[in-house]
Structure formats: structure tokens, C-alpha cells
């Protein structure tokens, strides 16, 4: 048992065993400040977000996209603002760039939580911009089966989606005319906090259909790999990606405000790590001088 000498400085000793709750309260202050007085730190746009934007903008008008909403309320804080920015782009800015023409959307959820996010983030935007349900887009609600459902969807869309979430038969939906399999889909976008993107990459990207997503930061490393292997055309990682996308479409909003708090809270973590290591050096210095 190495006996700690009394003279080693008390200050670093106290700092070493500081009560973790103090660190937590200071974090709250560091996050609250930018909300009360925004700092507006600039956000450079990274490649994955730029490619995500370019790929969507390059889609020919009238082509059909699969929108997989498989995230739930617990991740709204992280991907809510990004999804809102994406919907803002799809329903307003894309038509402006293409003389008023629109894309068509086949929307579904392989997570039970998906319908909640559809009602919170997708439906309001469609209604607000006068998109016609059943003609421009159709929603099929929760589809059970996880990976197997995603695989079967690629092969035969009508067999997996016989009727939409309101009960209309698929044949009555004009949006679904000519939509049979992956061959009729231009691109896939996933609002993902449960890992559904992995299944779309495996069963759709492997067949040449581009996959992109709005995702939680914890899965960034995995999607960076898929993006590097060209399995994904891009991704919007957490609110940081959302802030970049908001700057890209010229509408800074929720995600930008969140990124400010990110900077301060990140700084707090870095300060803590540096202090911890200075404490370590001081300790080593004191125990050396003692010997």
C-alpha cells in the first residue's frame, strides 16, 4: 500500500475526489447559457451532409422515394430538428429548384414508435405545404418483421404493404402507381434511432438503390463506414448535422441553437479532462520529490 505523503498539495487532492454532482450542476449552467443568450458559432458543412443534399437535389422530379421513419420520442431531441429541416427542404426548396415539380414518397415504419414521429414531424409539414395524401405521398404505419420486412419490401412492395395506415387499399393510392419493387424507387431515406439503416443498406444499397439517413450520433461511426464504402449517399448526424443542413438550406433554426450549447458543454468536458491530467502530473511530481 503506497502511503500518500501529507504535504502533497491539498487543492489537487480535493479536485481529484470532487463530488460528481458539482460537475453535473456546472454542465447544466454551461448548457442553459446559449439558450438564454445565443452565441451563434459558425458551423462548417461536412462532406456527408453536402452529398446528402446534392443527391436529393439531383433526383429527377416525379421519382419516388422510400421514407422509413423508425425513430421515437426519446430521440426527438437529437434528430427532431434535423428531420424538420429535411422536410422543409423536401416540401418547399426541392420544388423551387425543379419548377414546382415534386417527388413522391412511400412512407413506412419498422418500429412501433415510427407513427408518433410521422405525426409529429412529417404529416404537419405535408399538410402545411398542401401536399395531397394518396397522390403525392402515402403512409403505411407500423410494419412488423424488422429486417425480414425490409428485405421483403425490396422484392415486392405491394405484398408487404397491402393497405395504408388509414385502411385504404394500395391500388386506390395514386402515389403507389407503378411501384412494385426496388427497381421503381430512386432513393431511400431513414429517420433512424434504432438501426434500421443497416437493414436498408444490406437489402437495398446492395441492389443499387441509394440509402441516406438522419441518425443519432451514437451510430455515426457505423454510417461513416457505410458512407466511405459508398453504400450510403450521405447522412445527417445528430443536431450537428442538422445545423449544417439548416445553414445549407439557408434556414438556421433549432439545430443551430443546439449546436451552440454543444460547444460550451464540449468545452466543459475538455476542461475537466485537462484538469484531471494536470492533477495527475502534480501528483507524480509530488510523489517523485518526496522519494
Amino acid at each position, binding site marked *: 500500500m503506497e502511503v500518500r505523503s501529507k504535504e502533497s498539495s491539498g487543492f489537487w487532492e480535493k479536485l481529484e475526489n470532487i463530488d460528481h*454532482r458539482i460537475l453535473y450542476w456546472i454542465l447544466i449552467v454551461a448548457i*442553459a447559457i446559449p439558450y438564454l443568450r445565443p452565441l451563434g458559432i459558425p458551423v462548417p458543412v461536412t462532406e456527408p451532409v453536402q452529398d446528402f443534399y446534392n443527391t436529393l437535389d439531383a433526383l429527377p422530379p416525379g421519382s419516388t422515394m422510400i421514407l422509413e421513419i423508425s425513430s421515437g420520442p426519446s430521440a426527438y431531441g437529437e434528430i427532431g430538428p434535423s428531420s424538420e429541416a429535411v422536410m422543409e427542404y423536401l416540401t418547399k426548396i426541392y420544388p423551387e429548384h425543379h419548377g414546382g415539380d415534386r417527388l413522391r414518397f412511400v412512407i413506412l415504419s419498422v418500429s412501433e414508435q415510427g407513427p408518433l414521429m410521422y405525426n409529429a414531424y412529417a404529416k404537419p409539414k405535408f399538410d402545411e405545404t398542401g401536399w395531397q395524401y394518396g397522390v403525392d405521398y402515402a403512409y403505411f404505419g407500423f410494419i412488423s418483421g424488422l429486417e425480414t420486412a425490409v428485405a421483403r419490401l425490396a422484392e415486392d412492395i405491394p405484398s408487404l404493404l397491402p393497405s395504408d395506415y388509414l385502411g385504404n387499399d394500395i391500388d386506390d393510392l395514386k402515389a403507389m402507381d407503378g411501384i412494385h419493387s426496388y427497381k421503381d424507387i430512386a432513393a431511400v431515406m431513414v429517420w433512424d434511432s434504432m438501426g434500421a439503416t443497416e437493414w436498408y443498406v444490406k437489402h437495398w444499397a446492395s441492389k443499387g438503390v441509394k440509402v441516406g439517413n438522419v441518425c443519432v450520433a*451514437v451510430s455515426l461511426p457505423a454510417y461513416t463506414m457505410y458512407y466511405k*464504402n459508398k453504400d450510403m449517399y450521405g447522412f445527417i448526424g445528430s443536431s450537428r448535422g442538422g445545423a449544417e443542413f439548416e445553414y445549407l438550406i439557408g434556414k438556421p433554426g433549432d439545430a443551430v441553437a443546439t449546436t451552440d450549447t454543444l460547444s460550451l458543454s464540449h468545452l466543459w468536458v475538455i476542461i475537466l479532462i485537462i484538469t484531471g491530467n494536470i492533477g495527475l502530473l502534480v501528483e507524480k511530481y509530488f510523489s517523485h520529490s518526496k522519494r
Partner: protein
Amino acid sequence: MMVDYLALWRAMLIIGVFSYALWKESPYFRFCEHAFLGSALGYTLVITIKTINTTAVFPLVSEAKIIYVIPIILGIVLFLRYSNSTKWISRWPIALIIGVGTALGMRGVLYAYIISQVKATATASFMTDNALTNFNNIISVLTTILVLLFFTFTVLKGEKEGSLMFQLRKISRLMIMLTLGAFFGSITMARLTLIAGQIKELLIAFGLLTS
């Protein structure tokens, strides 16, 4: 200014959860914990019954697909584990679950975990016109091979201090540490983003911020 009682109620729940970290495990936290466990179990029960209805009962009853009797019987057989004399048969449905899960697990990793990673490494080119890409590809291939060697059970055991194997093991261990650090850096951001949303909700609930 009309007080939004619902927002205040939701703020009290957020504070209840945060009290575990900001204070200690208290009856306030315990109430939120058990309220959450209760409503989550209720939610899971409802979703599960809905799934069983659509995947088993509906095909059996209205589409008369008799085959669906089998999974339903197997599901009921599970409950025979409560009496010792019939416990042996309750293991049959468990065997089905384990067999299917094991196979899906093995199928799932074959391409996603093994082949696409081997392919990404094996097709890394050192002859591209961009010097930096060549350098990066060399580092990537070497790192992958070294770390893979580190995880061997009988080969690279790092026998004697100073032997080549020991050095290789030391370098690959440093590469693993680098990877752990990089993941820590990218995951930290997520954690801090989520808490930001909750703090914002508290500020709005207590009127310090207009949403």
C-alpha cells in the same frame, strides 16, 4: 400568462429522473422509475397483443391458415414450465427461439461483420494518383491486420518481453486504444446533445425561455 400545467408536469418528471444524478436515489426518483416501468410494461403488452393479432390470430381466424395453430400452441406450451411434471415440454418453444435467433445472428454477421470488412481492406489500393490516399490505405490495412492478430487466442500470445510478437502486440494494443478514444470523442457529442434538449424543455416549462 397561462401556465402550461402539462409542461410543468413533464418538467417534474424530467427533474425526477435527473434527481438520481443531481442528488441521489430518492423516493422521488423511485416514483418516476416505477411509473415508467409500469407504463412501459403496459405499452409492451398492448404492442405485443397487437403483433400477435396481426401475425397469428388474424391469419388463422379470418384467412383460415391452419398452420398458424402451431406457433400459438407452442406459445401456450411455454406456460407449462410452472409445473415440474410438464416443464420438459416448455423447452421446445424455447429451442425454436434459440435456433432461429442463432441462425439469424450467424447470417447477419457473415456479410456485415466479416465479408464487407475484408473486402474494404482487400480492395484498398496503394496505387491511386493521390499520395495521401495511398498512405491512408497502407495505414488502414496494416492496422486491421495488426489488431486482428491481437485478438488471436493461440498465436500472438506475446510470450517473451522484447520478442517480435510482444512488440506487435504492444503496437496493436495502442491502435485499439486509439480506436476507443476516437469512438469516445464521437459518442460524447450525442450525449451532450440529448441533455441540451431536456434543459431547453425545463427552461420553457419554467417560463425562462419562449419556445
